[in-house]
């Protein structure tokens, strides 16, 4: 009987080929577009998160007690804690890399312009292996020169200071003893991390030079840790908090809550997308099924008269709706997956809008993400739309009193 039901459903769809194809195409195109939007928007969000993790926070960052509220060198991670911490980090197999940074707020100036800045003393070799800082370099070289008198600065800061490679900058800051101190550096590199905080304010200098400049012999202000598996972040954070109760241990999303919000927005967006799919598929299928049912009241009447139960009619209508919905879904999912795969590998180049993207700290080239959720959510929406459209179609059929129609010649 199943074959007969499928045959009747299939033949009914074929009888209205153009209409059926239009609905399938409509579902396919809607899904295709929506998968693309989801994958690319997700890609943008994840790239922003990845940039923040790589360039600054790591998966977890450690700070001295009170440093987050008062970024003073007095609140740094002291030398004794640093040694213990280094030993701990070197022995934990969950960690892929970690770096120490010595940061201080100050002023950066050229002959004509000055800006607030965050001076960040780093070890470039370790940073390279940690967050691939070198990959963010857009001008100059990845180094501080032979005498460690160079600086790598964010591209936005460079624009504001109107300074280029080889240009001289003066750093002024308060040292450990609350004395104002200054040093002159040459810009050796300009980076573009798309982490707005870094690109607009940070000046990277050699950590040893920074110690000398700020008068800090021991200790650091931040230790950033990168994990092999980001799923372990929360557990790792809890372990660190237990082991180093005198330190503040923050996850990346605690340091960059706005980025986490982007993810939340993305989830909301996915929900809206699912509702849109449900609406589009539902209206399309419902329209075709209503017409199809109304055209075939007599046919259904014959079936009922010769002993077909209403459940079988439900099965026929459901099969028709499912054939359209699932075909549209499969076509849309295939096109969407193929396009997302392309953009995942080659990226979506929106350099034309790079100025706008830069304002929001986003990459002009976005690599799409493909999550099974996209397809599962869309499929559930389609099935739901099929069931709703079937429900209305069956109601209309019942109201049409099909058995009475068969006596009309």
């Amino acid at each position, binding site marked *: 009987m199943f074959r*007969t039901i499928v*045959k009747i459903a299939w*033949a009914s769809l074929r009888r209205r080929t153009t209409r059926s194809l239009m609905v399938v195409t409509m579902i396919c195109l809607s899904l295709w577009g929506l998968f693309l939007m989801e994958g690319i928007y997700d890609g943008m969000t994840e790239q922003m998160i990845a940039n923040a993790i790589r360039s600054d926070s790591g998966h977890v960052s450690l700070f001295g007690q009170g440093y987050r509220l008062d970024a003073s060198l007095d609140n740094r991670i002291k030398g004794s804690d640093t040694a213990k911490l280094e030993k701990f980090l070197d022995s934990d197999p969950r960690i892929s890399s970690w770096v120490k940074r010595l940061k201080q707020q100050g002023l950066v100036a050229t002959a004509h312009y000055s800006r607030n800045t965050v001076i960040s003393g780093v070890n470039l070799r370790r940073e390279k292996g940690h967050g691939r800082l070198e990959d963010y370099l857009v001008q100059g070289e990845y180094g501080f020169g032979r005498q460690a008198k160079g600086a790598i600065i964010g591209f936005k800061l460079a624009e504001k200071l109107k300074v280029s490679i080889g240009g001289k900058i003066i750093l002024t800051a308060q040292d450990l003893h609350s004395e104002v101190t200054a040093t002159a550096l040459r810009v050796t590199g300009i980076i573009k991390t798309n982490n707005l905080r870094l690109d607009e304010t940070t000046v990277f200098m050699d950590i040893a030079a920074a110690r000398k400049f700020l008068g800090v012999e021991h200790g650091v202000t931040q230790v950033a840790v990168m994990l092999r598996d980001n799923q372990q972040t929360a557990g790792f954070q809890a372990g660190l908090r237990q082991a180093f109760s005198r330190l503040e241990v923050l996850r990346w999303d605690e340091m960059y809550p706005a980025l986490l919000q982007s993810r939340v927005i993305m989830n909301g967006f996915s929900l809206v997308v699912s509702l849109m799919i449900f609406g589009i598929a539902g209206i399309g299928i419902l329209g075709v099924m209503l017409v199809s049912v109304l055209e075939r009241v007599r046919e259904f009447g014959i079936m009922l*008269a*010769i002993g077909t*139960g*209403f459940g079988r009619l439900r099965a026929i209508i459901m099969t028709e709706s499912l054939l359209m919905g699932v075909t549209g879904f499969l076509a849309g999912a295939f096109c969407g997956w193929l396009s997302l795969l392309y953009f995942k590998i080659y990226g979506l180049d929106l350099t034309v809008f790079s100025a706008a993207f830069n304002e929001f700290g986003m990459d002009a080239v976005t690599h799409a993400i493909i999550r099974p959720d996209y397809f599962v959510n869309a499929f559930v929406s389609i099935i739901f739309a099929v069931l709703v459209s079937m429900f209305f179609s069956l109601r209309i059929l019942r109201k049409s009193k099909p058995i009475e129609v068969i*006596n009309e010649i």
Partner: protein
Amino acid sequence: MTPVMTEFLQIRQISKLYQPDKEVEVPALDNINLSIEKGEFVVISGPSGSGKTTLLNIIGGLDLPTEGQIILDGKLLTGLAERELAGIRRDHIGFVFQAYNLLPVLTARENIEYVMKLQGRSREKCRARSLMVAEKLGIASLLDKLPHQLSGGQQQRVAVARAVAPTPKLVLADEPTANLDSKSAAALIDMMEKLNREEGVTIIFSSHDPLVIAKARRSVVLKDGKLVTDICE
């Protein structure tokens, strides 16, 4: 009321009132009483609007009487739920309609096998039975054709095959020859009579064609919803 088990089909005090709106009542059947034995070949005749179709629909459970009872093979049909009636139509009653009413997307063979499949018979049994009935009705060569590829007479023979193939207890045919020429009509009634004899199936059909009526062994005449004559051969 407990049904009496002597007759195969009992039609007891059946009345039907149609009410197109609240203040208008149209009597379609008025206190019809009729008993039909197993294996009978009965024609219900009468002028247009006499209630033939209404009576057949009520016997077949396609319509509900305003009053009265239908008892088929000892089972009271009146008052059964639609689901149970569908089961009885599927297993015990075959229908032949004036307008053939074949399912347009199925071939002649699939139309004939449809009810048997609903009954849950195996594919092989459906095949064998549909072929046997089709041969009896002279349509074996047409089994793979779709309804729109067949003439009116051929379609009606497929409809008869569909009604008879599931081996029902009763076949109800509502003016099966109305859309056929006289030669095809006579041939169709002859075939139905042959099936009645060979398969032992009880057949009740309606008609107002004197040539067709003459072939029945029992003739029931309705007029204005009332039974006026009931003549056995």
